[in-house]
């Protein structure tokens, strides 16, 4: 069987065109980028982009545009302006331009423009709709979620009825199920058993509205503590908080919640002899909470699916860099031995 597969692979190699070979190179570069070989992968992506590979162009364009989601790293940040222009951007008559605005395939023009221009402002819904219509679902949902979390549920509710199904965003469906249910109580027992991958986004959205909806009474103390941590406010936890159980619950939730799994995997790298109960809590504090994790989504869903990205090493690596960078501005003592070792390394 192995021999047959090898022969098949060889015959494909002989039959493949130069374009297919380039495509394979670009795919390999994307995989390398996801799995941590950043310097060589970005250079390979740059070569592929310059030879017309649109996947590489989209990815480089987003790395250039969006520092956090796309390419927050010492390597990218350490590039000089000229190197950056050379490596990440498309050449044009004025010097360089972001690849998202210079995609080789004219059919992808709308997609490039949508990714390049989205932002969360006073009228974010059109940006979300624009992203969603070009297949950038996770980015569109992030815009919606952020809109609810700045208190503007009215804008989300006022989405046009022909909103291409955006009202089916995962976290909105979770909120819908919660609102229609008879049991409003939100306990950790119930929450950890919930297998919906959008439950943390949904929980934060409903908590944002809890006061005007008179729902605060239904949140258990443990869930309120979890929300505090997830918002990056672990420093406000009560003195008698059960960190062991909080940490165990966060790890369990991270098994179904992609963004939280980034923190869980980062902290898991440290826990060899003993469990560091403060690692996830303090990592969330330093990096300003769940919204930052949501920014670590796939740069371009059309190139790397949300699922593949979140489970790759790339977001963990970006998170680690982010943590180190933001620790410089964190004034409280470091309680987590894992974070202390991480920050100390390389200093």
């Amino acid at each position, binding site marked *: 069987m192995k021999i047959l597969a090898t022969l098949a692979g060889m015959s494909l190699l002989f039959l493949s065109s130069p374009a297919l070979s380039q495509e394979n190179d670009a795919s390999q570069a994307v995989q390398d980028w996801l799995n941590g070989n950043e310097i060589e992968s970005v250079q390979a992506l740059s070569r592929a982009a310059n030879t017309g590979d649109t996947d590489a162009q989209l990815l480089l364009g987003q790395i250039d545009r969006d520092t956090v989601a796309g390419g927050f790293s010492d390597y990218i940040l350490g590039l000089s302006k000229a190197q950056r222009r050379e490596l990440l951007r498309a050449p044009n008559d004025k010097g360089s331009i972001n690849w998202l605005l210079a995609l080789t395939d004219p059919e992808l023009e709308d997609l490039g423009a949508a990714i390049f221009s989205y932002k969360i402002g006073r009228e974010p819904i059109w940006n979300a709709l624009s992203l969603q219509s070009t297949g950038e679902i996770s980015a569109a949902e992030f815009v919606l979620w952020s809109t609810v979390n700045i208190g503007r549920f009215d804008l989300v509710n006022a989405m046009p009825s022909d909103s291409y199904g955006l009202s089916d965003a995962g976290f909105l469906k979770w909120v819908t199920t919660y609102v229609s249910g008879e*049991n409003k109580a939100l306990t950790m027992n119930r929450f950890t058993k919930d297998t919906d991958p959008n439950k943390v986004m949904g929980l934060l959205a409903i908590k944002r509205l809890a006061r*005007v909806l008179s729902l605060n009474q239904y949140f*258990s103390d443990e869930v309120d503590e979890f929300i505090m941590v997830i918002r990056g406010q672990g420093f406000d936890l009560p003195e008698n908080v059960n960190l062991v159980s909080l940490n165990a619950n966060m790890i369990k939730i991270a098994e179904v919640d992609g963004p939280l799994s980034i923190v869980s995997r980062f902290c898991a790298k440290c826990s060899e002899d003993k469990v560091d109960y403060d690692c996830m809590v303090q990592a969330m504090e330093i990096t300003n909470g769940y919204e930052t994790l949501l920014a670590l989504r796939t740069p371009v869903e059309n190139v790397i699916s949300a699922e593949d990205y979140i489970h790759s090493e790339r977001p963990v690596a970006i998170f680690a860099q982010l943590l180190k960078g933001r620790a410089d501005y964190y004034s409280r003592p470091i309680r987590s031995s894992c974070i202390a070792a991480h920050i100390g390394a390389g200093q």
Partner: protein
Amino acid sequence: MFGQLKTIVPCVLALGLATAANAGTIRLTSLDGNTALSGEFVSFDGEKYTIKTIVGELQVDAFQVLCEGDDCPTLEVESAAFGISGSSKVVGNLFADLMFEFGLDIGGDSLTSIGTDGPTMIQLQNELGEELAEVSLMANGSAQGFNDLLSGDALLALTTRAVGNDEKTVFAAAGHGDLSSEAQQKIFALDALVIVTARSNPLRVVAEQDLAKIFSGRVTNWDQIGGPSAPINLYVRDPNSGTGSVFANLVMKPVGASLSPKATILGTDAEVASAVAADPLGIGITGFSDSGSAKVVDIRGVCGIQVPATSFTIKTEEYPLTRRIFAYTSAKDVPAQLNRFLRFLDTDAAQIAVANAGYVDLGVSYQSNDEQGLRYLSAVMPTDVEVSLKQLRRMTGDLMASDRMSITYRFALGSSQLDARARDDIQRLANVLATGDYQNKELLLIGFTDSVGPGSSNLALSEQRAQQVQNALVAAAPAGSLDNLPVRSLGYGEISPLSCNESDNGRRINRRVEVWLRDIVTVSR
């Protein structure tokens, strides 16, 4: 008095409550401007907007938002000024604190002005600084509280005793409804009458049957109750006050005794405590919350059971002179802000204020089986209780590794119906369990009876009452909220009295269903 109040407080009241649904869109913005919702207007019940949104129907607290849109219900500005009258300490101290906490809870404020010759006034403001209500606090005693509610001078009466049957009749005849109904009577705190002496007095415990003799003047010297030879000086409240009335009902009337004419009558519970604390030969009756620097003396029942006055024994109402603090409203007029305030009384913030004011709150406390020594002493002390070692062993096995919750259900006299506090406590327990994160626990509802009748019948009766509480609890709990917590009902009959069965009050205390949280111990393989 109330009629003279200047009506300066604007309050939003809705016209056309429970407005029929239509499809117009409204926008609801929180008063602080930080949250905005929109949706199709469905209805308005005077306190909540219901809107249809992309996540389903949402109910929005109308007091916290401003409504914009053609379909917003028509509003008019009316004055909301009302009086609260009743027990001097409850109104004067506790309610001033509760109003302050309420102001914080709604994101607003409460401004207190103490009148020199009039009632204390509290202006309640929302978070925009707009006045929602002006409340006058009239601290004139429980009896006057009922009078003010009847006359309309107050819309809320706060009393340290339950409404009497005669008073109920008068209220019903005047169109004020049934004051003892669930809708109009609310228990929001507990207190207890305590026997106090000066700290220098060596007496630590007084026999229950001697209380009436002491305060009626039949026992006049300390040497008759184990002290030195010296006259006893009595300090009490007016028999018409809440304290005086509860003492008369629980201690004096059952034995046909009346208060000694030599007793010094004082105006407040705090004055009684101060007077006794300063008199080494004094003994008095005051409130637990007002005992101050006086020494609280334990009461020993006729069967030998001796229950100290603690927050836990008062919460469970096992201390024999426990009293409930009541809030009564009329069926005629309850302004929206008053309704909102009454709901606030059930919150943690309100109950913390209750405890901070020296009263016993209704929040759930826990006591481990290790701290239940009284239970086992009481099982063997009385001679009228049918109890075997086997039964005690079984109960001990069930209660091992368990914590007792302070919620205890009691039944109306001669009835299988839960009493007024028990009805509220069913919902309170359902809420506590629904929002509790229990791991490896089970809930035990354990019924007990008094010693009247054969032990075997009492065993069956106790099981039946525990099952009744379980049924009520399951009905009150939201669907799925008890999935993680097995609930079992058990009955032990009469084997564990916590008060003497010789008196009506003692039997009432013993007819109960206790609530226990038990660890499920898993043995490793």
